[in-house]
């Protein structure tokens, strides 16, 4: 009877530790996945443009009008001025690419930005972000990503590396940011091989923001109205609704204390068990034969 009570008490220890370590259940809420499929799975989506009350996507060479994610209304796509030819039209408010050069558009003639690199005649990707005035990110014809600092200096930002000894670097297929509304400072770089990379500090540091997304991304576009980023991939159309970049959780104070106690109790119990195991392992053969 006594040993049964001990067994029950021992069985309750992990449960108590679990309750302590878990803390109040409401302390954390699961965030939405970073990328969520919208449709056209199994098809390569080569272009996507938010178009009023719908999404204009190009799959298999044909334009499709899809409903906005979460909307039950039938989609109505208003064809944008530039068509659905690409997520980034090779220009941004106040800036443009002309013959591989970055030019500032003003009231007068367009002038080449001093110190800007020659990106190559076929360069077509350039964005600004309203949250970081003066910052420009552009992709050269050879795939090198350049950035202009707010002070006006230009420099290389990112060089993509080969996928392996036999394969070269993936193609940069799109560049997007919130150019007219300071929703976020993030700039999104789409690649056909490394999914989507983002920078939030104007091109200094890059992070791969791709969980769940196919690695082959062919187009990318932002929509400030729905606070969303759309990615056309080799396996359908995906959406990322803006959310905080994941980091260590910041538990509320009471939950922190409960969890801290739980973790400390787990560490204490484990240490005791480990010491007992060490003492058992260290017993001399003579002692073990005596006790046996």
């Amino acid at each position, binding site marked *: 009877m006594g040993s049964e009570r001990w067994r029950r008490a021992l069985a309750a220890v992990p449960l108590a530790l679990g309750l302590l370590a878990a803390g109040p259940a409401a302390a954390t809420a699961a965030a939405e996945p970073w990328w969520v499929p919208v449709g056209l799975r199994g098809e390569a989506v080569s272009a996507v443009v938010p178009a009023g009350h719908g999404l204009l996507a190009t799959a298999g060479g044909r334009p499709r009008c899809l409903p906005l994610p979460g909307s039950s209304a039938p989609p109505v796509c208003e064809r944008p001025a530039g068509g659905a030819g690409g997520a980034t039209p090779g220009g941004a408010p106040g800036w443009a690419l002309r013959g591989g050069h970055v030019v500032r558009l003003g009231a007068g003639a367009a002038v080449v930005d001093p110190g800007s690199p020659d990106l190559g005649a076929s360069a077509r990707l350039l964005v600004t972000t309203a949250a970081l005035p003066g910052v420009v990110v552009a992709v050269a014809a050879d795939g090198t990503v350049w950035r202009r600092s707010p002070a006006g200096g230009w420099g290389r930002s990112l060089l993509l590396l080969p996928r392996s000894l036999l394969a070269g670097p993936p193609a940069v297929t799109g560049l997007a940011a919130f150019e007219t509304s300071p929703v976020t400072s993030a700039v999104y770089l789409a690649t056909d091989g490394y999914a989507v990379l983002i920078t939030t500090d104007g091109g200094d540091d890059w*992070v791969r923001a791709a969980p769940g997304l196919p690695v082959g991304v062919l187009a990318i576009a932002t929509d400030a109205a729905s606070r969303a980023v759309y990615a056309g991939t080799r396996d359908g159309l995906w959406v990322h609704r803006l959310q905080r970049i994941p980091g260590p959780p910041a538990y509320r104070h009471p939950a922190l204390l409960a969890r801290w106690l739980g973790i400390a109790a787990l560490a204490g119990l484990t240490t005791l068990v480990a010491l007992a195991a*060490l003492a058992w392992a260290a017993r001399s053969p003579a002692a073990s034969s005596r006790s046996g």
Partner: protein
Amino acid sequence: MDGSGVPSPPHGASWRRPLLALVIAAAALAVVLLGPRLFDTDPVGVDPFDLRLAGVALVLAGVAMVWGRLAEMRAVLLAVASVVLPYCAWSATPPMLARVAGGRLSFDAEVLVSDVVYLAGTLAIIAVALRWLPERWRPRLRLLGARPAVLAVAVLGVAAVVTIALALPAEPLGRLGIPVAALRRDLPLLGPAYVLQAAAQELQFRGLLLGVLERTMRPAAANAAQALLFGLAHVAVLYEGPASALVPITLVLGLVLGALTRWTGSLWPAIAIHSALEIGIAVAIIPGLYGQ
């Protein structure tokens, strides 16, 4: 070029107790590190500097130092403490510096100071081991007597590691690109920091731990044991970025560096190769989102 200089373990020397000590300590640390995850708690939000690991390692090594029954396990438990305690000090130093210096130090300077602390903590525990362990347990650190052949091995090793890293597929490694702007900003301070970090880890694993284990085990077994702990230790950094490939890679790396250390009789080739790897990770690994 077998320069190990360590006599073969005497016939009948007890390798079971040191090995059991290593297994028990590693298991306890793994439970304390990962246990909270079972209860839906991210321990980084509660114990960001892994102080629970330091507590366990400190108690196990401390008890072994004063309890005669664990005398044969002292050296191994001290070696485990040399891995854990400096790691906790290293991770806690930047935020403590930020609080003390009130933001006067750059982040890179904080990291450099934390790596100085990391190496100093490692050397302090090694000093304890060399001062208080009995002669038959004292490890040979292989820091003296660097010869030209050793330098050649170091250079060839660095070249081999860089070639292999470029040959392996980029995706699982996260070896996606070179953030040029960030490197220009960071490498002047973080480059030396990574060298200090690599030196500290080589002293911990291929210096103290391997040196202690090979006092009782055959070389291959001692090398395998230290490499296993080296691989498992990297579970602690799995919370950040695409690190799923890290544990098996570090396990193999630990085996190679351990064998190289024994073969050359010098720790310096391992320090050189490890430094190159740490810098290479900073240069070419694009981190992923936290926890994904």
